[in-house]
């Protein structure tokens, strides 16, 4: 190992203060309270500042972890948040919901000694510190490239693409189907785990950067993707995995049987827990059973509990196989959620008014490991049993929303209804269309969606800068090839006349004049320019805003 061993190892991982279970089970306020500054600095000072930090290897967006941790240790919080934001647009979100125990903290060198640095809590601390200062620092935005990108879906994947591309000078518009941005962060993950004010703050930051946000706009319905492509140079699809699965067992359409999406959307997006102050109604159930074992199931069960119900999780395998984050399972247990393991519902039984009253279920035992490596549950014959409930939430998973696939001929779709996209670049089968996040992978995590967004943004940016941008100034706009040549010729200072031969042009853009070498391309109605002085081999462009798109300086480069 390469870590310096100068100071004495401090393995005391600082616990983050939390609301106590007895209190928090009656409110919707955030469970974890965050480090105070002194605790954060103490925790950060434990980091060994490894030369080859193993934590970074396991971070899907490659945050400079030792870098920001060091700055927190030194009390330089603005510095820490700057380092974080170089790689992560949503640190306040990721610090709260990322499965760090499976990522950076899992590979921290100190993990073997049980003292891995609490990277997530520190990330959260830095982000919250910035929010508490009232205003986020806005980085410099380069001059506009004149290129337009449409982002479909305002979840973590879409937000990341938007943030990355706006910082490279492209114009970005997000189209979101719902009335609020954030995707699952807004409609799915509950207030007590991820306060909506934080998501709102992150979205607001994008707005400050100049991203255009259009809500209430369903791509595929309000406008087809093909139509959007006519107006935009590139499109990114981050539509998420929003199609809820049901188990197709009898009684699933009884009143009181919800999909997790419905249950959580009513609560979070529509603020049902504040009904009737907010208009969207929710039921105050007494006995709620949540079917499933992932983060979604934990969120539903803990929500039901906070609304005053006896809340149970019904999972067909055992505790060990629970796919939810350990921290959330522990939180749920502390709050008094009852877990029924090795249990599989086979039928819902209703009363004469159509309300669910009982679940019939089978007990299971664990058999051989399946494809996922987890031991697969096998029903025990004759173990049918009844359980009294007055609501069931089905949290067994989601698949990609079929709206865009169904309305976009030519887009290649995988077996699971996912959009097929290249893993390294996010490119889809359609020209100028990229995709990433849950819509490609199926339901995954926030940080993986962001990572996919980052890769796609890089690829989109490469594509946009490889384009030979048309010089868009008024004399040429909408001009035919002849008028274009006219205009070009009259400004030509030397070299070949029009056609395909290179020539030196003097371009007048607004009040500024630029010299450039270029040519009129007959078929494309385009004038290409490139770096005048050094005349590099690649032909480049001068754009309307007056910058060379390679070096971003105006005039001669």
């Amino acid at each position, binding site marked *: 190992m390469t870590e310096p061993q100068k100071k004495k190892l401090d393995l005391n991982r600082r616990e983050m203060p939390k609301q106590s279970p007895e209190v928090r089970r009656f409110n919707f306020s955030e469970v974890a309270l965050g480090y105070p500054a002194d605790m954060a600095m103490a925790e950060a000072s434990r980091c060994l500042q490894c030369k080859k930090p193993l934590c970074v290897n396991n971070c899907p967006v490659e945050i400079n972890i030792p870098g920001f941790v060091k700055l927190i240790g030194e009390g330089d919080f603005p510095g820490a948040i700057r380092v974080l934001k170089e790689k992560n647009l949503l640190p306040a979100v990721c610090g709260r919901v990322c499965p760090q125990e499976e990522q950076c903290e899992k590979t921290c060198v100190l993990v073997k000694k049980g003292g891995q640095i609490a990277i997530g809590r520190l990330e959260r601390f830095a982000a919250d510190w910035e929010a508490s200062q009232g205003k986020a620092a806005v980085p410099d935005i380069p001059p506009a490239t004149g290129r337009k990108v449409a982002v479909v879906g305002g979840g973590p994947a879409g937000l990341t693409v938007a943030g990355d591309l706006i910082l490279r000078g492209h114009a970005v518009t997000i189209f979101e*189907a*719902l*009335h609020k941005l954030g995707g699952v962060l807004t409609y799915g993950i509950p207030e007590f785990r991820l306060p909506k004010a934080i998501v709102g703050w992150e979205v607001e930051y994008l707005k400050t950067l100049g991203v255009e946000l259009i*809500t*209430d*706009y*369903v791509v595929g*319905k*309000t*406008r087809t993707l093909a139509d959007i492509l006519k107006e935009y140079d590139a499109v990114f699809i981050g539509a998420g995995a*929003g*199609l*809820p699965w*049901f188990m*197709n067992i009898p009684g*699933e*359409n009884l*009143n*009181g049987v*919800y*999909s997790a*999406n*419905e249950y959580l*959307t*009513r609560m979070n997006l*529509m*603020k049902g827990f504040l*009904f*009737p*102050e*907010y*208009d*969207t*109604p*929710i*039921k105050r159930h007494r006995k709620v059973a949540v079917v499933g074992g992932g983060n979604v199931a934990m969120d539903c069960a803990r929500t039901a509990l906070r609304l005053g119900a006896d809340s149970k999780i019904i999972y067909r395998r055992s505790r060990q196989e629970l796919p939810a984050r350990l921290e959330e399972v522990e939180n749920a247990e502390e709050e008094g959620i009852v877990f029924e393991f090795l249990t599989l519902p086979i039928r819902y039984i209703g009363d004469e*008014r*159509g309300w669910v009253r009982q679940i019939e279920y089978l007990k299971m035992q664990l058999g051989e490991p399946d494809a996922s490596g987890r031991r697969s549950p096998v029903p025990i014959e004759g173990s049918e049993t009844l359980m009294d409930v007055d609501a069931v939430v089905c949290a067994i998973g989601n698949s990609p*929303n*079929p*709206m865009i696939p169904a309305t976009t001929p030519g887009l290649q779709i995988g077996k699971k209804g996912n959009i097929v996209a290249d893993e390294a670049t996010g490119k889809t089968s359609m020209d100028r269309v990229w995709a990433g996040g849950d819509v490609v992978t199926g339901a995954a995590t926030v940080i993986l969606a962001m990572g996919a967004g980052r890769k796609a943004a890089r690829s989109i940016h490469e594509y946009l800068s490889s384009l030979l941008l048309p010089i868009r100034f008024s004399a040429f706009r909408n001009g035919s090839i002849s008028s274009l040549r006219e205009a070009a010729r009259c400004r030509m200072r030397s070299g070949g006349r029009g056609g395909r031969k290179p020539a030196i042009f003097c371009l007048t853009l607004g009040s500024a004049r630029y010299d450039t070498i270029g040519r009129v391309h007959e078929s494309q109605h385009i004038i290409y320019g490139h770096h005048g002085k050094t005349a590099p081999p690649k032909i480049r462009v001068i754009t309307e805003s007056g910058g060379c798109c390679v070096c971003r300086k105006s005039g001669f480069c």
Partner: protein
Amino acid sequence: MAKILTKQAVVPNIHSMVVEAPAVAAQIQPGQFVIVRADDDGERIPLSVSDWDAAAGTITLIFMEVGGTTGKLAALKAGDDLATVVGPLGIPTEIGDFGTVMCIGGCYGIGSIYPIARALKARGNKVITVMESRSSFLLYWEDRFKKVSDTLIVITRDGTKGYRGHVSRAPEIMKTLGRPVHRIIVNGCTYLLKRASDMSRPYEMKTIVSLNPIMIDGTGMCGVCRVTVGKETKFACVHGPDFDGHLVDWEELLQRRKTYIVEEEIVVTASRCEDHHAAIREQRP
């Protein structure tokens, strides 16, 4: 945000609202709907689009004041904004060369079936429009329907206009037409949809109904709108709202629509009383 351009009560309890929504107006087709929120705290409710003007970028909504949200909508005026108008959602009503089509509309469905009748007529079908209501004073848009219908029939529950009774009288009405009906399309309250389907079932006449389960997102994400059609579960917002009325599980739909009946009452009573008391307080010197 969408601006309300005009708003009026067309008949008691039923309002029409012309809203600025250029993106919707550019794409909308007969039988599609929008999701609306009256204000920022508001619930999302589906409303069919009853007319539109793509050039002006406007759509017309016809809605019946039945509860909290429609009550809020009814209280808005021209110049106010709706927090959300999103669409067009759902699959458009099939407009084919059917021959003779009977379009049946009741309450808000009189409005929403109008563009369907208009499109069928333009396509060259014979259109028989049937308007059903409790009483003659609840009928509207008769003049519009005259222009797009070959025959316009009125049924009122109390017999104050046209036939007396309800849609189950359609068979005897059909006999008087002297020509076979090839398809029936029904818009309106769930009871009308069900009754019309029951009416036509013995005659094996294709009957298309526009279902109206509870909805939230309208994009296939939440599943609250699920209905059973021919033993299969469908999401009405994306697979419908039009379905074959003879295959719909009506019992289930009627039950599911009642899920929030207790809470809906709370909204109406709570808001009404509060507003009322606030108004009284304000009036005091």
